[in-house]
């Protein structure tokens, strides 16, 4: 019997497929998320929209708050640590968090290095803006990749860019001759063995989810039609007018993402989605997606 194996880490991600993972800041919100059909919750002190508004250093959450959320729900509980902050990750592992998100939403702790995730029994999810970044994170041990998007904006444009970029780059690799792959790996700055694997299979070696800017059922459908297998919703639920209705609707949209008639029904009368931010309103130094590499 062993539990270090990678398949056990990706196995949980397989079970989350076709679902919605929701950011929650209190046990009450966690219960609302579970009752709406979330497959997991992400426990954090402030949702990305508020982190963006408040400024300051955003760190891993208080263990007390994480434990309260773990007690409130029966579904998996994820939590975020800062990029490169392996001590925060160790604490989250000690709390028996189900998945650790090494996240650009928090202020990075290391500008050069990400966490060596193979050292942990707890699986990690990491954000990516392109294929090379995704493969570097998988090389370090991430068992799940999500688009970064631009967190806390309610604006889907960056998540779309990241998903399309990853898809195009995977398609390009799969058309290459074997003798071209070493040069491709060098140019991309990605681990060679993973480049070879993507070229062979045409897909990421781990599940591929989407996060960053999803605010409506249609956004969820869009990302899933572009290839996302599950949706993370951060600010989109608890910054909307009617959180419970929005949560339920996005859960249904993740199942019926390819049925426009059904999506029309699901989208009806949900109240206002979160207000959101245009990318031109965000100063370059405030872009969270540029954190990490």
């Amino acid at each position: 019997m062993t539990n270090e194996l990678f398949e056990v880490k990706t196995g949980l991600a397989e079970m989350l497929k076709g679902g919605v993972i929701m950011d929650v800041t209190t046990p009450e919100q966690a219960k609302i998320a579970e009752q709406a059909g979330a497959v997991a919750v992400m426990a954090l002190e402030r949702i990305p929209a508020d982190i963006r508004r408040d400024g300051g250093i955003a760190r891993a959450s208080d263990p007390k708050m994480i434990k309260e959320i773990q007690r409130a729900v029966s579904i998996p509980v994820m939590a975020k640590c800062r990029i490169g902050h392996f001590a925060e990750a160790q604490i989250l592992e000690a709390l028996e968090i189900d998945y650790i998100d090494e996240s650009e939403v928090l202020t990075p702790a290391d500008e050069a290095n990400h966490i060596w995730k193979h050292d942990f029994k707890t699986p990690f999810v990491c954000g990516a803006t392109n294929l090379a970044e995704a493969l570097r994170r998988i090389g370090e041990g991430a068992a799940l990749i999500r688009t970064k998007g631009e967190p806390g904006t309610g604006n889907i444009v960056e998540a779309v860019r990241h998903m399309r970029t990853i898809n195009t780059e995977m398609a390009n690799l799969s058309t290459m001759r074997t003798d071209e792959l070493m040069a491709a790996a060098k140019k991309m700055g990605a681990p060679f063995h993973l480049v070879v694997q993507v070229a062979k299979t045409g897909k990421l070696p781990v599940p591929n989810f989407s996060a960053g800017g999803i605010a409506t059922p249609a956004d969820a459908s869009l990302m899933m039609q572009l290839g996302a297998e599950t949706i993370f919703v951060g600010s989109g639920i608890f910054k909307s007018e009617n959180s419970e209705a929005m949560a339920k609707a996005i859960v249904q949209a993740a199942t019926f993402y390819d049925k426009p008639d059904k999506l029309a029904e699901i989208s009806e009368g949900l109240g206002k989605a979160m207000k959101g931010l245009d990318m031109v309103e965000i100063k370059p130094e405030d872009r969270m997606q540029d954190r990490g590499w």
Partner: protein
Amino acid sequence: MTIRPEYEDLTIGVVALQGSFAKHAFSMGKLGIKSRAVREPADLKLIDALILPGGESTTMTLLLENEGLWEPMNEALETLPVFGTCAGAILLGQQIDDERVRCFNKIDYKAERNAYGRQIESFSTALVIPSMLDHDFHAIFIRAPKFRDIKPNVMSLAVFGADPVLLRQGNVLVASFHPELTEDPGIHKYFVDEIVLKSR
């Protein structure tokens, strides 16, 4: 592998609301068997057997109820052979003491959710399944349930430690682990050969 002629006109339904449904369809595909995603009541009329995949039992309960699938499925399961893994196995058992999950009462045990603990306690192991396979089965347990209060009419096909992990009662087969995550389609083959084909 040559495809058995009996497989040709079979269609296995896989409940495709949330979870590892695509992996189950892939396992059936390896045997050369067609599968069909079940997302609405009409799908139930077009299948010879049903699979309830792994995933989150709370999410599946909500989606089954919201989509008007729970009642038609409950009725169909009176006769339809069914295979449930992990969350699917929780749903097929007797009603558990948790109002977030609604069970179908098709096999006589009560499941205890997440009985091994959180993800950090998830594991894989080699299982011996003498009545089914001539080789060990590589079994992946993810936040797995345990089967409690198992009635004597339920047949245990494999155990891990003291706990039965693969059970059968008539046309109902359940695993607390995830055969759909493994390359080996041996348990899926048993379901089709010994349950689906023999019930026709």
